[in-house]
């Protein structure tokens, strides 16, 4: 595994470097001072203890957790494009439980909030799973479309049944103090970061050391061989992978409520579920790689805020950078595949019967 891993890291670095060159070129073309802007980007992400802990790391938490969820499904060869929707489902459940557990001990309250979020994420993805198994509906489409439904549900919830008791803003009441994830004083960082790291290591161990993870990867890389030679019930494995993918994304929503916002409101996610796809792909679906790429994208988005504040550069500029990074990676991948090496781990979908 080590030579491909080394190459993956290298292409990753090159891609990020090219992304920044493009960003700098775009900034100077747009009439911004690139040195000042990029400096602001750096300061926004890493410039101070506060920037690092309260912007970069806080942003990275949902990206890592959702990235792991996306990677889990992709490893099994299925595409969960609906992490955003499952994130919202988890957030709704977390906010709903969170205001009802004020009298509980803190551990139980936090546990209840997070478990509710996990279950909500699972239920939300259960719809595409059933559609896929019963009617063969492509999960790419059903998970994607359910994002919009979930968003609409949040809008309905915070203007209707779950609106704050004051009834002024379209948001829910803040969850009980005992239901909030603890964090270091003077920062916005919270224990969700540790949860994210723990999950990444757990998933990595599951993938590499257990029969469960092996079967999942086998189904993703060679569904026919998994079924015929491995006697693996591929449909069940795929369904299970999607359900756990949804569980992780739902948990991401719960952690965001319990650790950062404490309340549910519209646009809680600035597209975490979509950025998570980039996070997972850039990490080549490697759970430990997801930590790195989650931090990278967290830093980029934190830096984007800094750049907007200090240099007046629209935050969208960073999204362009992210897009360039992804394109370079995909291109590098396509080129290496041409000379016969490398794989996204998406296996069968990308590499047809050219083997022989």
């Amino acid at each position, binding site marked *: 595994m080590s030579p491909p891993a080394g190459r993956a890291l290298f292409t990753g670095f090159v891609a990020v470097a090219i992304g920044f060159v493009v960003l700098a070129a775009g900034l100077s073309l747009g009439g911004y001072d690139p040195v000042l802007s990029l400096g602001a980007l750096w300061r926004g992400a890493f410039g101070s203890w506060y920037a690092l802990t309260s912007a970069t790391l806080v942003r990275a938490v949902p990206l890592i957790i959702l990235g792991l969820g996306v990677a889990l499904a992709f490893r099994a060869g299925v595409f969960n494009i609906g992490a955003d929707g499952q994130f919202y489902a988890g957030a709704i459940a977390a906010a709903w439980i969170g205001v009802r557990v004020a009298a509980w001990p803190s551990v139980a309250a936090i546990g209840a909030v997070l478990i509710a979020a996990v279950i909500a994420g699972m239920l939300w993805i259960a719809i595409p799973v059933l559609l896929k198994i019963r009617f063969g509906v492509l999960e790419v489409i059903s998970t994607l479309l359910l994002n919009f439904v979930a968003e609409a549900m949040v809008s309905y919830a915070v203007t209707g049944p779950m609106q704050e008791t004051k009834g002024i803003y379209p948001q829910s009441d803040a969850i009980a103090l005992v239901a909030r994830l603890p964090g270091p004083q003077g920062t916005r960082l919270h224990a969700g970061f540790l949860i994210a790291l723990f999950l990444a290591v757990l998933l990595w161990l599951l993938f*590499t*050391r*257990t*029969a*469960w993870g*092996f079967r999942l*990867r*086998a189904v993703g*890389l*060679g569904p*026919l*061989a*998994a079924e*015929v*030679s*491995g*006697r693996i019930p591929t449909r069940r494995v795929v369904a299970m992978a999607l359900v756990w993918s949804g569980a992780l994304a739902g948990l991401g929503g719960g952690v965001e409520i319990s650790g950062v916002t404490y309340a549910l409101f519209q646009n809680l996610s600035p597209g975490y579920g979509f950025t998570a796809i980039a996070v997972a792909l850039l990490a080549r679906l490697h759970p430990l790689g997801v930590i790195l790429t989650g931090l990278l994208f967290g830093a980029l988005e934190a830096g984007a805020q800094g750049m907007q504040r200090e240099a007046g550069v629209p935050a969208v500029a960073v999204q362009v950078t992210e897009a360039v990074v992804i394109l370079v990676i995909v291109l590098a991948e396509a080129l290496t595949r041409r000379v016969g090496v490398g*794989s996204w*781990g998406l*296996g069968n979908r990308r*590499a047809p*019967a050219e*083997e*022989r």
Partner: protein
Amino acid sequence: MRGADFALAPGEVHALVGENGAGKSTLMHIAYGMVAPDAGSILVDGRAVKLASPRDARALRIGMVHQHFTSIGGLTVGENIALAAGRLDGWTAGVVGQRLLEGIDLDAPVEALPVAQRQRLEILKALATGAKILLLDEPTAVLAPAEVDELFALVRELVQAGGAVALITHKLPEVLAVSDRVTVLRRGMVTLHGATQEQTDQSLAQAMIGDAAAGNKEQATGDRQQTSRSGQQATVRIHNIELHAGELVGVAAVEGNGHRELLRAIAGLGPLPGVQVAGRVAFVPEDRSTEGLIPAMSITENMVLGLGDDPRWARGTRLDWSAARVRTGELLEGFGIVAPGPDVPTGTLSGGNQQKVVLARALERHPTLLVLENPTRGLDARTTGEMHRRLREAANTGVTVIVYSTDLDEVLELAERVLVVWKGEVREGPTGADRRAVGAMMLGVEPRER
């Protein structure tokens, strides 16, 4: 490739033979513009040409029929032809097109066609691009004997009409039957070139393999043990036919008659009425790169895939990869599999070595029943001989071995009993049945004695 000349004259069928990895396909891919040569030149009608892509080749009226079908299953025959066609003129449509189209419904979806017709469609598509020079890469691998004859009749018609055909094959009888000239490749070099008339299968085999061992068929040897190593026996009953431990049973059928379903039912992959099986089954599926192996996974991982919960490395839900890797290394050695090590992806191995991995894995299960579909498809003579030896060995230790092969000669050579599947019905061939008798049964003729 290490320097090989190949010349194709109008009006001739030129066979290109050699073992796996001898460079036959590579040479044809160069002629079709798919692979750029490091050195050397390509001449068409005496003029040196540069082929940057198959498109250039097609412009020079060169067409290729690949080993794997390249038609789009969801489209109709007509649509596939239209898709391929750059040029349709009198030569194509008039001389052979009609003959090729006999019995093919232009509006049928390609996925509904039997294999032999899909094969004809591939040729038709190549002709539809205006090709007069046809490169056929192992076109008979999937055909029954009668279908092969039909294909060769077509090939003869093509060359009589002024076309030229290069035919890649492993099968020496085919070379002798249809070609005018023959070129033998071994390890990228031409070892024999000449008129087919002057050759025998001995001389060709000699040139292919390069040592005196050529042509020696292994004989079944040894006393039969009636029990397997584990002392257990498999029982297989197909309607009123019962198979016994230690038997090597061949299955013969024309594609699409239900032999596939039968074999898979015996292997425990799906129920079929009338089939009762008990025993420890190992299955070698036909398509090693999609059903047998996961090309992107390592050899070790592929071993674990097929051996599942082997206690040597399955510790509860945990997998001990180092134990699996050690055992895989031993198997690579024991089966003479050429691979840099147990950690390389199986997709990087040659076809023959991939198949050895699949067989090694199947035998590692210590089965009492071994079911194989086309186990030597696409393998060279040496590897095929080794496969046969292993199957006989397994039968000698009491394993019930059931082999299907598209190659009827292989079935007859290997098997002591032959089952013929025709329209879903399983019948046993009479003892000592020859090629002709079994071939007739494959087409539905009742066997004479019972």
